[in-house]
């Protein structure tokens, strides 16, 4: 036996393999897809000692129940997640996020739910044995692209790791929670399509995240914005983080699996540094937008990147 095999005893709601995303195919209509929360993804790999950014299991709200029926492996769960580890002699322990655990043959991991957040991640030491398409193992369910025939992970699936556990130590990361409901943005290319009153409203009102939110987009509910120029523009390339406002005046934030082309005016764009924070917000949450300038956005990205590097550098061995 050189690798481990999990059996899926419960799939969860939206469980897929994801990595950093698939780049270089936007001109052929292929969205980048990839992990929603890049920070949690990165830390998940680091906790199991992966130098490479391997594909991980991403889940939303309810996660999977996986039983390791062959081999031995090391896992880590990141995000804000309730989970239990049930070992072969039926002793159950409450799982702790942002640390690694050893799983042995017969052990199970039951990822019950994400807590006040949308996405969680599970990594394994050495990565999963999954098929890559254009240098990425990200799954795009809508177009059936990626591992597992481009499908969500389903009941009875077998999930194989690249190798068995070698490292006998476990590790822990310390991550400060980010709770702000203020999301920072830059003005969008069609900002001036909106009335002065609507521009003010956009930055002053609270927006409620609607239930119609998934990996493609996040719909917001608030007072209607008024477009005084044109409610449609010539279809053009779009990108995640763009805030489109269709004719009904309710914004839609484009997310990781968004189409490659769109024809609605864009009032603003989420700064890259705040993207992970945004995608973890659940429907019903009230958020607001704050306008900053490009220089500040670039500075905040550097700061965020530095923080992630620091979290990884400060990962400690558990005795």
């Amino acid at each position, binding site marked *: 036996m050189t690798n481990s095999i999990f059996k899926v005893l419960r799939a969860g709601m939206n469980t897929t393999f994801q990595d950093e995303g698939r*780049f*270089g*195919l*936007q*001109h*052929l*209509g*292929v969205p*980048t897809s990839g992990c929603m929360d890049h920070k949690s993804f990165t830390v998940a790999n680091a906790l199991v000692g992966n130098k490479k950014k391997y594909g991980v299991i991403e889940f939303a709200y309810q996660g999977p129940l996986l039983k390791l029926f062959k081999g031995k492996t090391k896992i880590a769960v990141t995000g804000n997640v309730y989970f239990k580890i049930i070992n072969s002699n039926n002793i159950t322990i409450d799982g702790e996020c942002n640390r690694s655990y050893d799983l042995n043959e017969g052990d199970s991991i039951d990822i019950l739910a994400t807590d006040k957040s949308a996405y969680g991640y599970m990594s394994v030491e050495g990565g999963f044995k999954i098929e890559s*398409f*254009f240098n990425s193992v990200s799954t795009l369910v*809508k*177009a*059936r*692209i990626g591992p597992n025939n*481009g499908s969500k992970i389903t009941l009875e699936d077998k999930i194989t790791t690249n190798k068995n556990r070698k490292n006998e130590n476990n590790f822990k990361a310390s991550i400060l929670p980010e709770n702000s409901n203020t999301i920072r*943005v*830059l003005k*969008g*290319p069609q900002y001036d399509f909106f009335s002065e009153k609507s521009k003010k409203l956009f930055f002053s009102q609270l927006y409620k995240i609607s239930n119609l939110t998934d990996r493609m987009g996040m719909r917001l509910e608030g007072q209607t914005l008024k477009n005084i120029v044109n409610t449609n523009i*010539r*279809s*053009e*390339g*779009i*990108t995640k*983080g*763009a805030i489109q406002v269709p004719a009904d005046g309710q914004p839609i934030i484009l997310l990781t699996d968004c*189409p*490659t*082309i769109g024809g609605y005016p*864009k009032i603003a*764009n*989420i*700064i*890259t540094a705040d993207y992970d924070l945004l995608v973890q917000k659940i429907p019903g949450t009230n958020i607001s937008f704050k306008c900053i300038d*490009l220089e500040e*956005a*670039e500075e905040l*990205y550097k700061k965020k*990147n530095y923080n992630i590097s620091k979290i990884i550098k400060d990962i400690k061995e558990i005795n």
Partner: protein
Amino acid sequence: MLKKLNNIGDSAIVCDFGEEVNQTINNEVIKLFHYVRKQVELGNIEGILNCAPSYNKLIINFDLQKTNLSNISDFINLAQSKKLNYIKDKKHWIIPICYDFEIDLNNISKELKLDKEEIINIHINSTFFIYMIGFVPGHPFMGDLDSKLFLNRLKTPRVKVPAGSVGIVEKFCNIYPYESPGGWNIIGRTPIKLFNNKDNLKPSLLSPGDTIKFKSISKEEFNNFINDK
């Protein structure tokens, strides 16, 4: 001619070639697109993640860890001072189409006050230029259709349009690669698969800048084609 550069957030830029949509302008967009891809391939520019042409614009996404808006703007402005050429040959495709599915043909015929035969005749004799591929994988936006066939989008988009459906709106024609919602007027269906998710070299049959002519087939030929696959 490139008219202006706009940032879309902190990690994307749109090169805007003006409001008009025609093949001359789109050719300029595609030239710049090929130039950018070539420079990425040669390693002359770092941090570009994606680059995609639309009718009159080119969007470039970049990795803030490796570059920034100012570097990419300089790179594009430098490109503008050079004479850009096509790097690859444009391909011409003959795509089979069956007009016998009749989803919208009768309505179109009434709306345009043209016989079905006339509509088919105009469509089959048109050479279509691919302005862009996108929205979903492999989906071509083509033009230009004879003004006799100009139509608006459906008032209420369909929840489901079958894969392979060929639609028209204004001077544009499209092919739906997957079963999906859609608001275009459907005049026929092709058995050709536009996107192969197992092909790691060339997953999309068509590329921006290619041209297409349709070839009429019967329902029987359509079914044989599907069964042979």
